[in-house]
């Protein structure tokens, strides 16, 4: 078991119902537990989040769901406190909650509100998460923070400006905080998934044309599964990656190599 004895907070982890297509956070919760971790799942989608945590516990895992808006400083304090109260320590934080909106093309009337909202969730949310985890990770003698960015944090393309800006920001926020937190044994890395078939993308990626334009650009010729991104998280969460910090792990089937 690669995460034995570790306690992890995974944000955006509501969608993990057994037998159904999951999202990265929900899928990670299951696999982390399978590898021996105790997991705190958080999200704003409380109904599915509670259900996912309950199913993990039913299957013999140790999991807790908490309502958590990652753009809210007070929510972070509450979540970290609750994690410590329940499990006694914090070793891993996966800043996975996120998304984008407001149209995939910049125009003279692109929504300012959408831009600010997703900057708040993706970028400020990641900052708040790192900030909230520092003290308890120092206490644990170190830790691993995994920030879920995107290939749109590495390259441009038809994505909302809020998404491009916030995912790019996550990449260098990761590098800077990695350098600053290394003295405490806290590692910080980013993951950059390419096109993955998740609960959120299913509808869109199931359309023949939407799939075809994307897959034409992917050397491996298929979408990623949830697990294929989750195993990258497990590598970065585990002690296997004890010398990996400030790096960007691209999981995109070769997409951005071209």
């Amino acid at each position, binding site marked *: 078991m690669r995460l034995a004895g570790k306690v992890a907070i995974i944000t955006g982890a509501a969608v993990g119902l057994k037998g159904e297509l999951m999202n990265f956070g929900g899928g990670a919760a299951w696999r982390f537990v399978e590898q021996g971790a105790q997991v705190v799942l958080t999200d704003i989608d409380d109904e599915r989040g509670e259900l996912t945590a309950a199913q993990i516990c039913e299957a013999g895992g140790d999991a807790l769901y908490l309502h958590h808006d990652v753009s809210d400083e007070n929510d972070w304090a509450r979540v970290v406190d609750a994690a410590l109260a329940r499990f006694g320590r914090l070793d891993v934080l996966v800043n996975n909650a996120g998304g984008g909106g407001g149209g995939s093309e910049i125009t003279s009337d692109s929504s300012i509100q959408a831009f600010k909202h997703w900057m708040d969730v993706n970028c400020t949310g990641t900052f708040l998460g790192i900030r909230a985890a520092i003290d308890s990770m120092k206490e644990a003698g170190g830790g691993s923070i995994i920030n879920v960015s995107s290939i749109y944090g590495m390259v441009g393309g038809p994505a909302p400006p809020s998404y491009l800006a916030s995912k790019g920001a996550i990449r260098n926020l990761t590098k800077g905080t990695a350098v600053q937190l*290394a003295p405490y044994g806290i590692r910080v890395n980013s993951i950059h998934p390419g096109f993955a078939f998740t609960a959120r993308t299913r509808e869109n990626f199931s359309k023949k044309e939407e799939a075809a334009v994307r897959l034409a650009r992917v050397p491996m010729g298929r979408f990623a599964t949830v697990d*294929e991104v989750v*195993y990258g998280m497990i*590598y970065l969460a585990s002690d296997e990656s004890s010398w*990996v910090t400030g790096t960007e792990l691209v999981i995109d089937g070769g997409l951005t190599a071209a």
Partner: protein
Amino acid sequence: MDRFKGKVLLLTGSAAAVRGEQLGFGGETAWRFLEEGGQGVMLTDVQDEKGERAASQMRADGYDARYMRLDVTDEHQWQAVVDRTVSEFGRLDGLVNIAGAIDRGTISETSSDHWQRVIDVSLRQVFLGTRTAIAPMRQAGGGSIVNIASMVGRSSSLYAAGYSTSRAGMVQFAKAAAIQLGKYNIRVNAILPGWTRTPFTESIYQDDAQRRIRDVRVPLGRWAEPKEIAAAILFLLSDDASYVSGADLLVDGGTTAGMADLGLTTDHLNV
């Protein structure tokens, strides 16, 4: 863990694999590959005596391992090694390009022969190795190729113009090959290690001044152990990384993430 059950691995530059002696990246990787269920390992290098001893030590421990001489710049030797790997072990699933040669001196001091040698060890290696491995990997239904470049393939370094240029080439070649070979389910990636104590760096490590210049640049405050690089190699070889291709994975303790030595007065830098 049984991540490599039934799989066969070929490594270049992997003679430093004798347990009880200093291990290189290849040695750490080969042992763990076998311990995690690997069916067989082909060690290769230009240091025959050490390589033979390593392979027989692995066999004595009950594993299937062979050593063969392979100068990675030699096309014919590549073909012979890959042929023999397939005939001995029945298949080829993984190739790790580990051989390396370095120039230490200014550009003015570097002879064109030496420059060429450094470039060839890096770049003929990845070209010839990949080209030769394609057929058996297609036969196996896919494969994973890992090029061990260096963090100086992204940033550069004083006194190693040829080395860092050639290492950047290994990264770029991995991307090019990933694009072409994705359709065969052959994944190609590069790892960019930072300073690690191995036979390759032992003389620098032993030199206090040289070591300290480097120590302060590593945010994690120490050099890597070769097993930490091996863990990254094994991740990329395994099915855990089944959608990772064309990636360049830094494993450098944060060294190239930023300028840790600027303005940081934290005590760990002085220990």
